[in-house]
């Protein structure tokens, strides 16, 4: 993480722990009467969304506003993009408006990287999900949620996730959330297992820092957190599994499977959930499901990312290192 957050793989363990610790402090703001800090006053954050999203955009918007930044929301629908404007021309427009940070979601994998490295804009670029590539802030908020739940003191400040077993289940092929989580969680020392039908396991998964299994029942008994992925029908243009019922039976999480998980283990879902598909209503509504909490944690985590990228005269993470070396 230099000035941009493009990929969870760019984060070192110390960077990631710093972000989580910062998020932990910022989360306490939620208990205050005035949930706002003056830190980014006068800075402009542009939410550049080429793809539909409710929770991620709202989450980034809330995070930027709580830090007193000015927020400009830009969605491709109803903008010049629908008239055929290129990413470059859009970027130049944002630069002319003085954007200090651009939070970008794009249907093409690599668009945030292009934006960050092309020299079109000077501001920080934060990847809010690009194609089937990465969604680093989702991985950070997931790691934050896991750390909070699994640490004895309820925050886990300063700690990583060493030795934790995390299982990611479902449509890994189309999931940028899975990709970012595999990188981040393994950087934090967790053992990650992917569980999916063979057709939904991406090509080249052997090089990822994780195990792969095709059998959910074999894994579920010895895991600290199960992360259910949404079956992304909108990205599926081929038949990846015979029927939805069969998928739900083999790879869905129902009450029986949840009962076989260790007592402390949590169920996570990045949302939006397909109830009855990858997760039953019984599980989704149980105390062990952290889906709603993940949304709340998303705001704190994104505040931490924006603060560390924009709060100083240069990106934060390098700062922590210089402080250690002095």
């Amino acid at each position: 993480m230099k000035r941009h957050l493009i990929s969870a793989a760019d984060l070192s363990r110390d960077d990631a722990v710093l972000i989580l610790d910062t998020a932990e402090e910022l989360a306490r703001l939620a208990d205050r009467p005035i949930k706002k800090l003056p830190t980014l006053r006068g800075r402009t954050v542009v939410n550049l969304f080429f793809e539909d999203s409710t929770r991620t955009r709202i989450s980034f918007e809330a995070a930027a506003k709580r830090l007193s930044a000015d927020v400009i929301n830009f969605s491709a629908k109803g903008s010049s993009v629908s008239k055929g404007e290129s990413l470059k021309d859009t970027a130049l427009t944002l630069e002319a408006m003085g954007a200090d940070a651009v939070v970008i979601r794009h249907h093409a994998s690599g668009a945030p990287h292009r934006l960050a490295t092309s020299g079109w804009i000077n501001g920080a670029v934060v990847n809010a999900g690009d194609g089937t590539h990465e969604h680093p802030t989702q991985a950070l908020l997931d790691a934050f949620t896991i750390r909070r739940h699994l640490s004895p003191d309820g925050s886990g400040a300063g700690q990583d996730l060493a030795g934790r077993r995390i299982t990611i289940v479902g449509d890994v092929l189309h999931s940028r959330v899975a990709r970012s989580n595999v990188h981040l969680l393994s950087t934090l020392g967790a053992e990650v297992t992917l569980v999916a039908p063979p057709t939904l396991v991406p090509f080249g998964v052997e090089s990822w820092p994780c195990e792969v299994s095709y059998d959910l029942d074999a894994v579920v008994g010895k895991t600290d957190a199960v992360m259910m992925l949404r079956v992304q029908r909108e990205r599926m243009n081929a038949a990846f599994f015979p029927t939805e019922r069969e998928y739900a039976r083999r790879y869905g999480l129902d009450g029986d499977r949840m009962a076989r998980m260790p007592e402390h283990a949590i169920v996570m879902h990045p949302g939006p959930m397909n109830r009855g598909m990858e997760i039953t209503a019984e599980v989704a509504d149980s105390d062990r499901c952290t889906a709603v909490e993940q949304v709340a944690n998303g705001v704190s985590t994104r505040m931490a990312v924006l603060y560390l990228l924009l709060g100083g005269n240069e990106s934060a993470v390098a700062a922590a290192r210089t402080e250690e070396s002095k």
Partner: protein
Amino acid sequence: MDAHTSDAARSVLEAPDIARVLTRIAHEIVERAKGADDVVLLGIPTRGVFLARRLAARLEEITGKPGRIPVGSLDITMYRDDLRLRPARALARTEIPDDGIDGRLVVLVDDVLFSGRTIRAALDALGDIGRPRAVQLAVLVDRGHRELPIRADYVGKNLPTSLRETVKVQLTEEDGRDSVLLGLRGTTPADGK
């Protein structure tokens, strides 16, 4: 911490001095507040928090009300006016006592009073948390060179310094020993204090 700090720096206060100074400040607080019934101590991280806890213990001794002096911490990082001059820093803990600060006498506690900018930031932070009856400031060392119209209500030691000098407070909780060191800039890591 840098190895030459202790060699090049001169000690101005040692552990017994610090203990005496805190006892005196505690008595002054009780005297001025006519008891310490509505006092809330808020330390500014890192070392102000330890000083606030020590002061709370003394206040409880003096007033004979063990465990009755609320003490917390107030991180001012997000309110600093020099954030853009340096890389973003890690945050410290803000812990406000359960009963809050509305209508209470808040005593801010810090180790060194220098430019006054930290206290300015602390006052802004307090405004977002509640509305105290009054705010006072207790510091272990006042080294002068104020850049804002701010003064301390309780001062452990007035230490006239030049801008080339650095003041470093060490406390057992953080540094393994109690002392206040006066050094020269360049020989100690710049602490800004």
